[in-house]
């Protein structure tokens, strides 16, 4: 699967990662499981898949899903049917920074399509693709609850709102130079200034 996608170097690294939680991640997983009554550990599946995705290269390989199934003592198919249902789980390798531009009504009314076109041109990729260096993937998303600060995009846990072309430039440059994004949110509702 990964050979069809650009940026093989990054993904090979993701592939080589041994599928075993670090001690810290394992502690997080145990804490999550402890939130549910005994015998209901399957309830931990969605949050644990988020931990697994962050731990094993930003996507859920079949090996990762099998590993999660073994930890929660459920069948592998129960993991796959969940991982394939929810949009936040990546079933194929992604770039290090996944840009998800919201395209639903309020964002469209405020120019989301132009933001998408701008990013496509800037990165030389289309929606659904990853840059050759494995740095950025571009996706479109449905309403992310930032309608009052449209247009917006989400990168990992960060919400980037009130987007302009200049702001997009800055976000991408930040990520390229520092390898991370500064804050979770940078929204500024006009009525709360």
């Amino acid at each position: 699967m990964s050979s069809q996608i650009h940026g093989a170097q990054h993904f090979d690294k993701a592939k080589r990662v041994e599928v075993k939680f670090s001690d810290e991640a394992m502690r997080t997983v145990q804490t999550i499981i402890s939130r549910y009554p005994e015998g209901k550990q399957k309830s931990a599946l969605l949050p644990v898949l988020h931990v697994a995705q962050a731990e094993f290269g930003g996507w859920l390989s079949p090996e990762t899903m099998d590993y999660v199934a073994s930890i929660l003592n459920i069948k592998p198919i129960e993991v796959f049917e969940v991982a394939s249902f929810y949009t936040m789980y990546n079933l194929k390798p992604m770039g290090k920074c996944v840009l998800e531009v919201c395209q639903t009504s309020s964002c469209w009314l405020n120019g989301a399509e132009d933001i998408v076109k701008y990013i496509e041109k800037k990165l030389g990729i289309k929606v659904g693709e990853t840059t050759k260096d494995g740095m950025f993937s571009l996706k479109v998303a449905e309403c992310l609850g930032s309608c009052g600060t449209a247009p917006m995009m989400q990168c990992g846990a960060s919400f980037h709102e009130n987007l302009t072309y200049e702001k997009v430039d800055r976000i991408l440059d930040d990520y390229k130079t520092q390898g991370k994004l500064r804050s979770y949110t940078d929204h500024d509702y006009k009525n709360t200034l």
Partner: protein
Amino acid sequence: MGKKLLIHNDKVPGIASLEVYRAHGGYASVEKALKSMTPDQVTDEVKKSGLRGRGGAGFPTGMKWSFLAKPEGVPRYLVCNADESEPGTFKDRYLMEKIPHALIEGMITSSYALGAKTSYIYIRGEYFYVARILETAIAEAYAAGWLGQNILGTGFSHDCYVQVGGGAYICGEETALLESLEGKRGNPRIKPPFPAVAGLWGCPTVVNNVETIAAVCPIINMGGEEYAKIGIGKSTGTKLISASGHINKPGVYEIELGVPVEEFIYSEEYCGGIRNGKKLKAVVAGGSSVPILPTELILKTAKGEPRLMTYESLGDGGFITGTMLGSGGFIVMDEDTSIVKNLFTFTRFYHHESCGQCSPCREGTGWMEKILKKFLNGTATESDVDLLWDIQSKIEGKTICPLGEAAAWPVAAAIRHFKQEFLDIARSKKFVDISHYNRLNQIVA
């Protein structure tokens, strides 16, 4: 200035912390309820308040609570629906991000009324950073003894946990949410049994929206009867409105139910009018699912009375000339907006979010998206308008959950009120997008 009960302290520095929240009267409802009221008395106050579900359906909260089955020896659960995904809605995110303790306080007070020893806040996965804020607040509440064993020495014990979802609009439907909380696909359940009888892990469960649960705090503090005096008729209390689109001041506003729609759109206190001096064309008043209304019908009812921000006034005229308050996702469109293209974004959304369980919704939403695409690329014919109408009518009421209706209503309303726009495109064989996006260049980066 209307009364504010939920986000009146949103600009207080540090209000997200327990210390500041407490200094501004936080957790008073927990003290009052646990120390001086029985659980039934708390429920009675909520009944008297006339509070209605703030997630969209508007079902009376006190009544929902009173349906909860209470068999001996079976645990009961309170689940907070923080899966805010209705396009145009972002009020819960604002509340949780700014004043997380308001939700946690409401969770404790409500759980006391329901006899729930454990509660879960199911938050959409995309709000990951908000979940972090909530978890920090919960840890503070545990450390200060507001959560955990024997709260305030009253013998009432309660645990509250956050669970993040995986990205699925359908999980805002309460039975899909419960499925998801159990670690499964978000496929809505067939009702009955309702969650009040068989909910989370088959146990009696109440599922309430974030804003509903937060509203329980002021209700207990001021008393249900006092709360009921705010608002008009059966629309009591205050409501958070998420205002977005072509307005000067998008954002979250807490209004007393009963504010005229015209005042809400044009006054400086709220939306501040239409951006760039443009004229108003249409409004989606309660999140993407509710019928869109043209200017003349959103400002005044068909009878010529001023339209008010209440459940009843917005609903006046049924779906022929009215709409719904819904979740309070208020999307404003100016004169240059293409209703057809806006509808396309909604329909694409519902097609994407259909869980796939029921064929009318799974197939119908896809067909509607395809037909609308024909309008956008200029290949639609006049008969496609009738086809679109026909398809939406065959989804509504024929699915397990209300996503079917949510997908059908916006299509029906767009054709009902803006049919000429569809016909013009079909006749001229071309779609011209004149929407102006100059906000992109307006915002100072």
